[in-house]
């Protein structure tokens, strides 16, 4: 390996920060989903990087699980967004105001 572990982990931290920024700032449901995906990818990158430097297969396994779970999560989230869009004609969660709070 010509690269060192710290480089990958720093990229992962940057992605995590971007994801948290997106969740904090954006109010568009799809964009928030993007942000969540970025966070999950940051975690996966961490896992695979750690697994490579051990070396150990567990990290890759967990990354595979995580990818598949992310797919399921996105499917559910997008279905919810579609339902919301049908109802509100909007996907901005700042405009969802049927519940107070």
């Amino acid at each position: 390996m010509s690269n060192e572990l710290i480089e990958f982990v720093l990229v992962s931290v940057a992605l995590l920060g971007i994801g948290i920024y997106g969740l904090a700032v954006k109010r568009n449901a799809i964009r928030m989903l993007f942000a969540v995906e970025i966070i999950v990818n940051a975690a996966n990158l961490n896992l695979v990087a750690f697994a490579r430097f051990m070396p150990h297969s567990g990290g890759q396994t967990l990354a595979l699980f995580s990818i598949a779970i992310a797919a399921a999560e996105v499917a559910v989230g997008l279905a919810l967004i579609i339902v919301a869009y049908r109802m509100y004609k909007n996907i901005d969660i700042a405009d969802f105001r049927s519940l107070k709070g």
Partner: protein
Amino acid sequence: MADALFLAISVLTIGSAIAALEMRSLVYGSIALMGTLGGVAGFYVMLDSPFVAMFQLAVYVGSIAVLILFTVMLVKRELIFKKIEDPKRKFAGIGLMLIVILALGAVIMDSGIKTISTDSDPVDFREIGGDFLTYYWPALILMALILAGSVMGALVLARREDTIENEQ
């Protein structure tokens, strides 16, 4: 020191992650997200994990990106360009991001991670298959249940009630 390929991929990944959140058009945002996911897949290839990389491409690009694009296109076009964003909130968010990155980065840079490097051979991806079948088999079953449940649920949610009767 990081080599050029690594720098290129990290610029692609991080840049397109920012673009995914900041592009005006959601469609371009989705494409930028695909760039991020592809960049992460590139990292996996650099980390000698081709199986995870290909799985990432197959799942993320093959299904998640399609789903996102489909949803984005179902949503009316004007909304894609509508932006409700409080500048104050935005600066707060940027501050939060910087705090997170700097704090975590400082912690990590300060820790023992920075000294880790390896010359050992990567794990063969066939070992993952072995792990799946021996150690993680209950998790694999749960995974199947998650996928089944999410597909069923997403179908139930996304299909329109009014046309179901017609199909019978």
